């Protein structure tokens, strides 16, 4: 018999008064996969994550985590989850090491076990040399790694990461991704939210794109690109602005004029460029690149700024 | 326009040794502006008045009913009459200190208000004077209200109140200046525990609740060296009596405090921020 998915949501809804943050979503996450929630700010990702981490009760719909009901069995479920919240909530008055041991005790680990786990995890997130130090002087990337170590302290079956690399510099992000990849290889199920497309492509086996509280697309990064974009994208800039867009009608599969440049979605980028030149247009710059999840995302959720 | 302003600045520099009343006023104006930020700061400000008043009612009136009379300058007075001027001096002290320690430290370390101010023509000594003036405004607001209460309760005469009011300004100035100097040395919030404990110790043992003559001699000598003692004696002498040449000594002590505090504070602010 196939194992029940670790997380199952059916018609899940979260309302705050009049405002509907999550508007009936269906999701299932299998053991061992890395699952992503993608979407602009306010899409309902964090509300969904809070329901999954059993700190916010669903308004309607069904939600089962590890085969249990998050409202009734919240304590038991939380004992088997690891949570890395969007806002750091490390204990700044405790040392790095004490942050882990104190947190471990919340899960009922013995003091000796807590110390052992803390030592191991600090090695894993490469902070062993900071064990005795304070939290405050750590860099943003180090704090996030410490938070991830803390989320691992109870050896959880699922780790929830809410925008794990927001606000980090590129080196810190890559180190973090590498550590998360190691976790995945150990068989830990990862559920993360992000609005970085490169992060989703790096980490997620499967993802859903959310917009306005609903799921607008679902699949692996590769599937989504295949479905909602073309293999290649040509970015064209024109000295005289984007007026040239009208003359691009029919080039490639789709033309998307932006204020500063024009995107041409095409199966074959070079062929599209050749067609542009054939029509006598002279763009000031031409860039042919592979289509990314960002193209899918912008196509699905629109280009207006959400904030 | 620029030349006119520059010329004006040069003239003022000559007249006031470089301190510009306009720039001091700008620092002061920032604090007045903060009052408009919302009811929280207002309420905190206003509530500060009640603390010494509550002590006056509890210890002065409540315990006073058990005490009877206490000698002041050889003349027995009601215990509440004895305690009231001390609480007046305390309200001047704590009003000025709250502003120049807690708030100045916050602006210094966290809000970084002064970094922004010093990026303008405003100089450290002008920041110090501006903050001190504001502390004085807060202090006088407390002492004025407190004096009204004292007169209403019959704890001093109208004449006594008029005489004591300027003295409370001196008390506020002295503690405000020293408080500002101290706040430039504070390392973090944990030092405030130390500061509060020190302030509270002064509050309990400066001839506030019982005459210093009752203390053991060694203790009495130590107390006569501490600042709140002089503030209490000065204010009590003016509000209740007896007036004597000793009042000049007390006032002199406070003047020295004010000048020294201001000098240290402006030097330290400059040293810490203009690096």
């Amino acid at each position: 018999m196939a194992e029940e998915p670790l997380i199952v949501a059916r018609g899940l809804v979260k309302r705050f008064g009049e405002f509907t943050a999550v508007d009936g979503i269906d999701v299932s996450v299998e053991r061992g996969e890395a699952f992503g929630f993608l979407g602009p700010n306010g899409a309902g990702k964090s509300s969904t994550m809070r329901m999954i981490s059993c700190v916010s009760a669903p308004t309607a719909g069904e939600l089962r985590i590890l085969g249990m009901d998050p409202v009734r069995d919240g304590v038991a479920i939380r004992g088997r989850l690891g949570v890395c919240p969007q806002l750091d909530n490390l204990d700044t008055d405790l040392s790095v090491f004490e942050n882990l041991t104190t947190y471990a005790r919340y899960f009922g680990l013995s003091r000796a076990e807590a110390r052992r786990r803390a030592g191991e995890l600090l090695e894993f997130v490469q902070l062993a040399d900071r064990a005795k130090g304070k939290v405050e002087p750590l860099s943003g990337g180090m704090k996030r790694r410490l938070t991830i170590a803390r989320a691992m302290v109870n050896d959880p079956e699922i780790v929830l990461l809410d925008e794990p690399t927001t606000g980090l510099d590129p080196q810190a992000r890559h180190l973090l991704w590498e550590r998360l990849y190691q976790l995945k290889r150990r068989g830990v199920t990862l559920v993360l939210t992000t609005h970085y497309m490169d992060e989703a492509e790096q980490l997620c086996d499967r993802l859903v794109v959310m917009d306005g509280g609903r799921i607008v697309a679902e699949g692996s990064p590769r599937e989504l690109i295949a479905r909602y974009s073309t293999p290649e994208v040509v970015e064209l800039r024109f000295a005289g602005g984007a007026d040239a867009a009208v003359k691009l009608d029919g080039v490639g599969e789709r033309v998307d004029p932006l204020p500063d440049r024009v995107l041409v979605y095409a199966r074959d980028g070079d062929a599209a460029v050749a067609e542009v030149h054939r029509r006598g247009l002279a763009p000031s710059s031409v860039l042919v690149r592979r289509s990314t999840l960002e193209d899918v995302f912008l196509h699905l959720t629109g280009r207006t700024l959400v904030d | 326009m620029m030349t006119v302003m520059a010329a004006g600045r040069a003239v003022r520099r000559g007249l006031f040794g470089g301190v510009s009343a306009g720039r001091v006023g700008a620092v002061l104006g920032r604090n007045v502006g903060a009052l408009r930020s919302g009811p929280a700061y207002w309420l905190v400000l206003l509530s500060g008045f009640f603390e010494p008043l509550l002590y006056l009612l509890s210890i002065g009136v409540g315990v006073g009913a058990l005490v009877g009379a206490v000698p002041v300058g050889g003349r027995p007075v009601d215990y509440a009459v004895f305690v009231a001027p001390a609480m007046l001096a305390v309200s001047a002290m704590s009003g000025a200190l709250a502003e120049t320690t807690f708030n100045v430290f916050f602006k210094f370390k966290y809000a970084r208000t002064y970094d922004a101010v010093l990026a303008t023509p405003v100089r450290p000594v002008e920041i110090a004077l501006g903050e001190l003036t504001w502390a004085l405004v807060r202090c006088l607001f407390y002492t004025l209200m407190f004096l009204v209460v004292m007169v209403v309760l019959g704890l001093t005469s109208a004449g006594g109140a008029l005489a004591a009011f300027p003295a409370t300004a001196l008390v506020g100035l002295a503690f405000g200046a020293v408080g500002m100097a101290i706040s430039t040395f504070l390392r973090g919030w944990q030092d405030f525990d130390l500061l509060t404990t020190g302030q509270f110790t002064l509050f309990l043992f400066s001839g506030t609740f019982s005459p210093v003559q009752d203390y053991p001699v060694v203790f009495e000598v130590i107390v006569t060296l501490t600042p709140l003692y002089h503030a209490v004696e000065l204010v009590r002498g003016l509000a209740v009596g007896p007036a004597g040449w000793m009042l000049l000594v007390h006032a002199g002590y406070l003047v020295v405090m004010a000048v020294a505090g201001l000098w240290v504070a402006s030097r330290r602010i400059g040293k810490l921020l203009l690096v």
Partner: protein
Amino acid sequence: MAGSGVHATVAVLERHLTLYRRLFWASAMSSFLLPVLFLVSIGLGVGGYVGDLGGVSYLQWIVPGVMASTAFQMAVGETTYPVLGDFKWTRGYHAMRATPVRIGDMVAGQVLVMVVRVLPQAVVFLLVVLLFGGLRSWWSVVTPLVCAAVVVASALPVMGFSARIDNDGYFALLFRFVMIPMTLFAGVFFPVAQLPVVAQWLAWVSPLWHGVELCRAATLGVAPPWPVWAHVACLVAWTVAGGWFAMRGFARRLAV
């Protein structure tokens, strides 16, 4: 199940003890030195003019009051900025919320750590006032327990208050309009009977007055003004109502 029940409460208690270890000296100063200074200034200094009060010296009369009010002030101090801070700045409660720790564990653990702190403090204070000749009865040994009851009865409602505010400016109001008036008018320094009737009513309602009178009955070896069970019942009522208020406040703040 690991982490549930008593374990989680103990884990929360340990967290606060770990924090407390860092602040031990600073807080020992305010929770021990200040009451002794108070006793010297008011008890000895002012006491010299008071003479006897109901057959005991004024110092002996205020010892139990200062003791109970120190416990009360610690309870308020530890449940204002630290509680708001764990909601707003360090978000410590949010971190706990993601674990098997329940709201009840958070509240109980934090209150228990104050009980653990107040007991030895009260014992040390008793020993010091014993040297001053401040105690008159063997019943004095129960005063640490009374102090613990005062701590619980006052800490819980303040936790509920701290869980509901967002601006720490309100603490200045709590201190000046609740804590300081209670310390000054709830029978610590002079008998409540001297107060106007309305103020007496307020004093009777306050948890501190019941603690003061129970401590005073114990150190002087006399009967308290109300039956013991009535004083205890008032402290229990504050504990139950405060506990409910705190739990609801925490639940609301964490369930956004």
